[in-house]
Every structure is written in structure tokens, then in C-alpha cells.
């Protein structure tokens, strides 16, 4: 800190401190000098500081209703959902035609695309090796939630740059 800024600080502090308080402090105890000050021009970008990208807020719309599942098997591979992927499931959304959903079939979870039109309700895999799941009259389809995202981490072991 240069001599001149030091003097400046003394002057401003004394003139700005309310009368009663300034009377209690001797000039040597001026509190402004107690911590280091950077006298440079403040960063013009400080007002625009952001927290960075948050994957949670990107993937999740409704936290208390959102759950994650691990995918087993390749029944949705054409939809880009692979064995081992994590899927984000939102229970608050109303499932509509062509949504990918997690449903309960025979007491087990299954991930398929929902087809719901002209009175027909079907769960279709996106892999020709797997059969459609159809629902006969009076058999209620139990949908657990709507799949709104998929997360995959590649297990590459490259070293850091």
C-alpha cells in the first residue's frame, strides 16, 4: 500500500465514522487498516458471478418427486438407453402417449415407451428382440413415473492433462 492511499484511508474513515463512535477511537486504532485492502479497481465481472453449471438443476424439475433407477438389459437400446445407464424418473408428470415410462408389470419394474391411443394401451420396447407388452380389458397398467433423462458415465481411465 502506498503512502498516499494510506493517508486517504485515514481521512475517509475519520470523516465517515459517526461522531460518537469516532470519538472512542484513537487515530492509531482506525479499524479500516486491520485487514488487508486491495486498492485496485473492482472487477467489473463481479456482478455477473454465477455458480457454474449444476447438473441437478438441468436434470431435475421437481425434486421431491424425482427418483433414479439403474437400467438392466437392452430393451430400450434404440432409444439410446443402455445397460447400466441411470435414468431420471419424475412421478409428478402425467404420462402421455409416446413417453418413456417406468411401469410395474407383474410386480417388477420395466422401462418401455408408452403407446396410448384409440383405447389401446401398450408398452413397447425399442429393440426388435423384445416383445410388446399389451394390456387386456380390465387389466390396469400401473405406471410408476415418467423417464425425463438418462445419465451415463464412460469408464475411461485416461490420465489428466
Amino acid at each position, binding site marked *: 500500500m502506498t503512502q498516499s492511499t494510506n493517508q486517504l484511508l485515514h481521512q475517509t474513515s475519520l470523516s465517515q465514522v459517526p461522531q460518537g463512535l469516532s470519538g472512542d477511537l484513537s487515530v492509531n486504532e482506525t479499524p479500516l487498516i486491520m485487514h488487508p485492502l486491495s486498492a485496485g479497481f473492482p472487477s467489473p465481472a463481479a456482478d455477473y458471478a454465477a455458480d457454474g453449471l449444476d447438473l441437478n438443476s438441468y436434470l431435475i424439475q421437481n425434486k421431491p418427486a424425482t*427418483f433414479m433407477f439403474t437400467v438392466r438389459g437392452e430393451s430400450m437400446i434404440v432409444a439410446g438407453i443402455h445397460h447400466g445407464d441411470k435414468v431420471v424418473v419424475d412421478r409428478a408428470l402425467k404420462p402421455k402417449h409416446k413417453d418413456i415410462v417406468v411401469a410395474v408389470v407383474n410386480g417388477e419394474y420395466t422401462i418401455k415407451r408408452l403407446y396410448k391411443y384409440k383405447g389401446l394401451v401398450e408398452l413397447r420396447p425399442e429393440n426388435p428382440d423384445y416383445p410388446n407388452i399389451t394390456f387386456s380389458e380390465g387389466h390396469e397398467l400401473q405406471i410408476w413415473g415418467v423417464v425425463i433423462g438418462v445419465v451415463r458415465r464412460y469408464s475411461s481411465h485416461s490420465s489428466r492433462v
Partner: protein
Amino acid sequence: MSSSNQNSTHAPLFALVDVNNFYVSCERVFAPQLEKTPMVVLSNNDGCAVARSAEVKALGVKMGTPWFQMKDLAKQHGILACSSNYTLYHDMSQRVVEILRQFTPKLEVYSVDESFLQIESVLNAHESPTHLGSEIKQRIKQWTGLPVCVGIAPSKTLAKFANHLAKKNPSFNGVCDLSNMPKQDLYQWMSEVSAAEVWGIGRKIAKRLEGMGMHTVLDLVQVSPQMMRLQFGVVIERLCYELRGLSCLALEEVAPPKQQIIASRSFGKLVLSLEELAESVATHTARAAEKLREQTSLTSSISVFIQTNVFMRNEAQYSQSIQIPLAHPTDDTLVLTEMAIKGLKEIYQKGFRYKKAGVMLGLMTDKPLVQSSLFEDHLAKGKSVRLMKTLDSINTRYGAQALRVAATGTDQAWKMKSENVSPKYTSHWDQLPLVS
């Protein structure tokens, strides 16, 4: 009781939202094949039933029944026993509270599965209190998969009673609003429920009431509250007013800091040696101290207790505790562990097989209010504060118990028995539910 409707915005109106068979319901959300299976969740160490499915309740199994006493019944009816998965229950509980806060910020989290909401100020957005209750019930079911019941009334005690009615009588469809119920019907319900069911009536008082000829909730409404005050004191007087629909208990939005912290567990297998007991006591001390720092309190007393298995009648029995006053209030794990181990050495007796050990912190003060003693070493204290902060932040980041005081040992053979615990479906990447 004044029947308040949605237009009288100033009289308080409470809703008690309570998850049905909470622990069992949490297990079922992630295991749909268990929807109809009779099941119980067992307490720590697989001891007693702490949650029962409707099927098990129908078999007459009471809350807190030890598992070994119901094993025959379980075999006969195919009752499934789950170990408790508190990580999962805590997560689900937080989801429920978060959803409830969307209805009103005036909320008291009463327990892991129950919250009081004060709703008179948000009623204008709804057709009736019952409609609001149904919407709460429906949204929690849709968003979390958990079934709840809602009791609505002008006082907290009555809201509890309303919730009880909603649970026991399917005709309410899970939502019971007493504020709009004709007096005649209300009195009819009150005459059918035992006084012992009322929130705040303990077993002892229920017995005394019996002796005085008061058996039902209605009897408590008809008796003079002033007379009850002379007999039982102000708490029961207030309870009688509450049952008449006069709100005396306000919503407690912020839980007051605990005046006692207890950390204890039963051992998975019986423990003989001082070393193993010491490991356990040190671990409990660390956990208790962590809780203490969380609520920014200091303690002036630590107690240690050990006991053998009281259920084993043929075994030699021993149980002992010791309280150690501390010269300076502290939240320092190292100081507390040292004292706890000293205490343990005082009470330990060779030759017994121990079932349980624990510590209790008492005589709490808020941290900033403590006067520092003339004889304290300030430099050492500053170091200790930093050390405890670092300890807590590392344990938060890398999982409880990542960093421990050396006395807690490393193999911990005594750890809790939980043989049939479900995955941590909502909090661990490697334990998510599977879908194919």
C-alpha cells in the same frame, strides 16, 4: 365447539398429515411385489416390530413386539421382516415435508412421519378444508408413492383425533374434517373412541381416568376443564380445552435444540472385553458430539452405560451407568471420548456378556453464551475448534465415520445386526432400484 368454515380466516385451523405404516410403506414404494405381503420393519438390531403392515395389524401383532416372540406367527402367515433402513426413511420423510411446504409454510414437523400444518390462511384457494386435505393426500401419493391420512380440526389435539378417525374408518377416504362436522356426529365419534387414544394421555393418566369413570373422548369433552386442572394439572386442562375446539397449543415451527443427546446401540453379538466395549463407547461418543456441534450446543456432563441382555434369564445380569461432570462445557470429541473411556473403566465388570452400551450428553448450553474460564488454554481451544470443524466436514463429505478417533477401533465386530435391510434406493448410486 364453533363450527368454522373457510370464510372465517382468523380462527386457527390445523391439519395433521400422517403417513400410513410409514416404514412399511417406504419399503413398498421400491418393492412393488410386496404390496400385499404381510410385513414388519424391525428396530435397530432386528429387535422389535416398529412398523406393521395392515395385514400384520389385523393379525393382532402389537407395536414393539419382539421378533423372537412372533416367529411362529410369522411362519404361519408368511410375515416378512425387514431390518430398518433409516437412510431411506429419512429421505422419503424429507420429500413429504417438502411437498407439504408447497401448501403452506406454516408447518411443524412433529415426527419422521407426521406434520402439523396451519391452514386457515390458505383455505381461500380451495373449495373446503376436505378438498384441501384430499389434494394433499393425492399429491403425496402421486409424487412419492406414500399413502397418508389427513385430520383437520381447530386445535392440534383435535386434528390428531381427526387423523385417528381417518385411519380407522375407510368411510372418510383418508381425510377427516371435524371443523365442518355436525356436533351430533362429532359427539357420536367421540363416544366411540377410548380416552387413552387422545394425544397426550399417557397410560398412567388413562388408568386414573378409568377410575374416575371417564372412558371415552366424549367424557373428556364433557368434564369441567377447571376440575381436571385440580386433579391433573394444567397440561390436561389445556388438553380438555383443545378437545372442545379451543386451540391452546401453537404450531412449533422450529424444533428447540435437544436438552439431551443419547447415542447407543445393542450389539450384534454379545461383547465380553473392555476393548470392544471401549470401541463402541468411543464411536457413540463421536456420533453424539457430532450431533452436539450440529445444534451448536456445549455439554457439561457425559454419562456412560453398559448392560447385559435382560431377556436371557439364565445369564448373569449386570447393568451400570456413571455420570461424569465436565469442568468446562465442551463439544470436543477428543475430550468427550477421553472422559467416556475413563467412565467406562470405572463401571466395567469382567465376566459378563454385554448386550448394549451407550453415552448420554446432558446439561447443555448454547455455544456462544459460555464464559471462558480463566484457566482455559485459549490457543489449544482455537486448535480444537478448527480440528472439530475439519472432522465434521470430512465426515460429511466422505461419509460418516471416514475420520475417527483411534479409540473407536477399525473392525468393530460389535456393529449392529441388520440381516434383511433393503438397499439405500435414493441415496447411493450403487443401490438404485433396477429396471429392465
